């Protein structure tokens, strides 16, 4: 038994070293951010999510959006994120402090969503895109989320006010109308809240961003 004891101690120590490096130190160094005031407006940033936006984040998590979409902007000299308009600067750890469950992602089957709330704020666009991605993005391999919408027979005398208007060739068919469910509204509210690299924060002041862009 004694020789095994040494082997055991050895392999648990090597394990422990990684635990210190990749668990303890990150929690220590990246786990205690506090909001700071925005130099321009004085509001505390990054803002906390509203309860609707938090509901939307839960839908995002439940439906696995992370498996195709990342939420991290990379520096200009390494990737083309900034040129593609996915952010004005790289995201830093502080940007994620209010996300509660980080959805940074590791796949870009679809574009990065860090600042989707800035580059694509239109609620209607998101409803159409999520109902059937082919409407706004022909050839996309994103799945349709029609199950997050209500489809019912259209009453011509009393059409739903928030029914979606589809271009020719799309939609539920004649006589039906489609309205977003509460979950869908929450999801879109969450997407509209994603403005991760849009704040001036202590680690990335506006002046430094400007000089990088030159």
């Amino acid at each position, binding site marked *: 038994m004694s020789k095994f004891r040494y082997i055991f101690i*050895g392999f648990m*120590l090597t394990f422990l*070293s990684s635990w*210190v*490096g990749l668990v303890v*130190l990150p929690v220590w*160094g990246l786990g205690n951010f506090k909001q700071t005031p925005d130099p321009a407006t004085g509001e505390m940033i990054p803002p906390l999510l509203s309860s609707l936006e938090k509901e939307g984040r839960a839908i995002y998590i439940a439906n696995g959006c992370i498996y195709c979409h990342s939420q991290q902007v990379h520096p200009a000299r390494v990737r083309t994120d900034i040129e593609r308009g996915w952010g004005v600067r790289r995201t830093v750890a502080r940007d994620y402090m209010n996300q509660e469950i980080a959805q940074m992602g590791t796949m870009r089957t679809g574009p990065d969503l860090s600042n989707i709330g800035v580059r694509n704020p239109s609620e209607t666009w998101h409803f159409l895109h999520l109902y059937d991605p082919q409407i706004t993005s022909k050839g996309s391999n994103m799945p349709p989320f029609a199950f997050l919408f209500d489809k019912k027979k259209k009453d011509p005398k009393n059409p739903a006010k928030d029914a979606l208007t589809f271009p020719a060739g799309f939609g539920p068919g004649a006589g039906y109308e489609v309205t977003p469910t509460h979950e869908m509204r929450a999801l879109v509210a969450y997407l509209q809240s994603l403005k991760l690299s849009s704040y001036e924060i202590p680690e990335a002041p506006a002046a430094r961003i400007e000089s990088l862009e030159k």
Partner: protein
Amino acid sequence: MLVASVVILIVMLLGSVGALFAFSWAATHHQFENLEEAAESIFDADEPIGTPTDTYITHES
């Protein structure tokens, strides 16, 4: 940042010293002898070295 660097430095120094110590302990306590015996420990009288233990029964050559 500075604290992190110091912590890492300490961990790495401790780790390296520990590894060197473990290696020298192992060397002086005969851990590197009889390695052949260790490799042969998977065999026994019934499945000795030289006898394949997984083949088609009809395999003649």
